[in-house]
């Protein structure tokens, strides 16, 4: 394969942005040239030739916008998990066929170190070069985590799931039926991580904390039914929470109920799609995530005669226990601040294999929703 590289010289994305070097390839990708750009950008940035890398974080997108939506999160998460960042943007319907490589060193806010950021944008038939190119750019020995920016389906996704140590999706930005496809992927052993799962950690933690309180432990053995109420029509996170409860307490009857949508600011997909504009402003105060349509509003479970109710009240989760012979019990936890990359950083704590609790929760969620077990593999159509 020959590669024709035409370096466009140094440029920056923004006046105060990092130094970024770019090269365009009309045929194939000259990896030596890309590596030379990495070395050059390091040298010009006055950075050491070597840097600690604990993982390869490869994101796959099907539009420039999709990449931009994830960029801030990836860089922020890499402050905690130093990574070589490689983003692939595949736009097969765009002509002409070419690959543009953009290389920069970025320093995430609050981080002591800089990260290599390589973005390969391929259009037209040149999309086929991306897979082999990324293999040549991975840092050796460290885990490969793929952040999937498209719909979680298709042959390319399955291939990524086979080669990555972890494959991270966000089912919370997708329709409810997506969980059926995820369940099928998990059944074939795909090491799937899900930002929507990390989003419900506070609900799970508070529910578990209640049953750890000394005077409420007596109810552990008597858990029966649970009900998850959502803001408007249920979304994947509500289904995951319900699925989680059903998998942990198999005898419990679990249901998902649509509540009022009055408090919602937008659909989850819309709200999270506006992430960079809303969250890219790093000087803004981090608040808890906005309440979106489909989000969990309430989790109620019973261990007769006790009734446990967890309710979201702006940035706080409030738990109330009624029917316990000690009287009513109140417990509150503040929801974590909605900082860019927080959920991704949580998911990156697990760098290989499946989270068995998640697997069981998805399986139960698919069953509760009576979802078909996903579609057959077909070429990715984002």
């Amino acid at each position: 394969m020959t590669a024709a590289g035409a370096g466009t010289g140094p440029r920056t994305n923004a006046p105060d942005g990092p130094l970024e070097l770019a090269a365009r390839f009309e045929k194939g990708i000259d990896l030596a040239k890309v590596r030379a750009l990495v070395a050059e950008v390091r040298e010009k940035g006055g950075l050491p030739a070597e840097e600690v890398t604990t993982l390869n974080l490869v994101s796959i997108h099907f539009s420039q916008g999709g990449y931009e939506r994830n960029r801030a999160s990836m860089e922020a998460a890499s402050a905690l998990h130093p990574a070589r960042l490689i983003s692939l943007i595949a736009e097969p319907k765009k002509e002409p066929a070419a690959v543009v490589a953009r290389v920069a060193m970025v320093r995430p806010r609050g981080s002591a170190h800089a990260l290599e950021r390589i973005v390969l944008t391929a259009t037209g038939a040149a999309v086929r070069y991306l897979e082999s190119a990324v293999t040549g750019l991975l840092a050796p020995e460290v885990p490969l985590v793929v952040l999937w920016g498209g719909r979680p389906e298709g042959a390319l996704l399955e291939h990524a799931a086979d080669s990555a140590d972890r494959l991270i999706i966000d089912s919370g930005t997708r329709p409810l039926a997506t969980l059926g496809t995820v369940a099928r992927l998990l059944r074939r052993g795909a090491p799937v991580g899900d930002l929507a799962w990390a989003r419900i950690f506070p609900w799970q933690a508070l529910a578990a904390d209640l049953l750890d309180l000394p005077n409420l432990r007596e109810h552990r053995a008597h858990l029966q039914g649970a009900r998850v109420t959502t803001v408007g029509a249920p979304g994947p996170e509500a289904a995951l929470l319900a699925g989680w409860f059903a998998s942990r307490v198999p005898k419990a009857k679990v249901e998902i109920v649509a509540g009022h949508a009055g408090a919602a600011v937008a659909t989850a997909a819309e709200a999270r799609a506006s992430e960079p504009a809303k969250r890219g402003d790093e000087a803004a105060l981090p608040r808890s995530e906005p309440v979106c349509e489909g989000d969990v509003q309430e989790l109620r479970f019973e261990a007769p005669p006790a009734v446990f109710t967890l309710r979201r009240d702006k940035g706080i989760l409030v738990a109330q226990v009624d029917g316990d012979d000690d009287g009513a019990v109140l417990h509150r936890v503040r929801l974590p601040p909605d900082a860019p990359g927080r959920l991704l950083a949580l998911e990156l704590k697990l760098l290989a294999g499946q989270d068995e609790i998640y697997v069981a929760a998805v399986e139960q969620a698919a069953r509760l929703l009576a979802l078909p077990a996903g579609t057959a593999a077909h070429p990715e159509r984002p």
Partner: protein
Amino acid sequence: MPYTQEDDEVQNPLRVGLRAETSPEPCAMVVFGGSGDLAHRKLLPALYNLALGAHLPGAFAVVGVSKSEYTDQEFRAEMREAVGKFSRIKPVQEEAWADFAAGLRYCAGSFDDPGTFEKLKAVLDEVDQTRATRGNRLFYLATPPSTFPVILKNLKTAGLINKVGEGPFTRVVIEKPFGHDLHSARALNTLVLEVCDERQVFRIDHYLGKETVQNLLVFRFGNSIFEPIWNRKYVSHVQITAGEELGIEQRGRYYEEAGILRDMIQNHVLQLLCLTAMEPPVAFDADAVRDEKVKVLRALVLMQGPEEVSERVVVGQYRAGSVFGVDVAGYPEEKDVAAGSKTPTFVAMKLLINSWRWDGVPFYVRSGKRMPKRATEIAIHFSELPHSLFGSGATQPNVLVIRVQPEEGITLRFSAKVPGERYRPRSVSMDFRYGTAFGASSPEAYERLLLDALRGDQTLFTRKDEVEAAWRLVDPILRVIEAPEAPAPLPYAAGTWGPPKADQLLARDGRQWRRP
């Protein structure tokens, strides 16, 4: 229904496999010394940072208790300023602060006045109602040790201490120093345990809250390649240095009573030694870890009599000099230092551990004020090669350095061939920097320790027998160096690594101190 142990037999089905961290139970934390320096600089900023990270229970309150007359509003304003100045996360996020500050209360009064504790009880009852803290209490004694007895007695008299397993929890956090010597440490422990159960006592040593100190456990017991060589067969000696460039600042009165042995050795340095020398614990829980640390302390060879102390211990006191290019005063010229003071500001010691693992391996420890720089590190010096293929002295022994502060990390020194020349070795260093590998800023030691205390996890807090075992080593040394006939500590110029005799301590064994 009251809690019974039978309830524990049913596993919490919602806890199994949960990746989310356990949040502490609802609780009201009472800070005695609420208007003091520790509360301003460390405790309130740490609590605010925990609140910011959503680590505190939603039902949480802090009640400051001190003599100073503040209203709740004034206390909040004072703490707002302290957080703005000392929190590692800047600027203060007003929304989060407002939420946190809503749980801040203040109770003015003297610690020896039982009326103060009646007032405190009323405030806590109110807080239970308004903040849903459910009667759980964490009492933090951020006060001089002389006040501990009266505070504990008054807490008990006011009915503010619950027994373990009987209703809401009560925990007591005690700041060092844990006694002035073995006798007073025992007396303090007796007093504390008259009021509380050992399971309720959290003796805080902030060194154990440091990430790198905890990492020592992971480094040793989370890797299979180091433990097999972590013994007398491969290790020639160990050096532990805990130095700082600062003098005693404004703490002359405290330092005159404490000196370097009480301030650093009895607690921080011996903790580092324990974590370096301990056997693998049978489990990673509070008692298993502390059992192993106590075994190390008990295996330390005690020094008996002036001769042995003078052979293995060097004490010094700084004189005027220059640090970082700035002239600084000597210890005798510092504020509140008695004329002719014999308080040591530097100590170097050769410690020996009687155990199968460490027999014959000296642990050289040193700590001092007004050193050339701030450096706390543990250096494991491995044995010389049995036979060098590259000529006598061509290679240096391997050294593994664990840097606790600053620039936390680990460095391994090994030999490598100089390029181009024929088998000429040179020592090179492989460096792991904690801050670079894990980019985000680490939580402050107090954040970790307060969270553990709120959760009831005692792993990083020192136990009664641990404190007493550490005093058993330090006590005989103090008796010798504080005897009226004892010679004055050796002078050393500020900005140096202590008196020359400290170098001789190692030179006698054919070794020298590492330059941190």
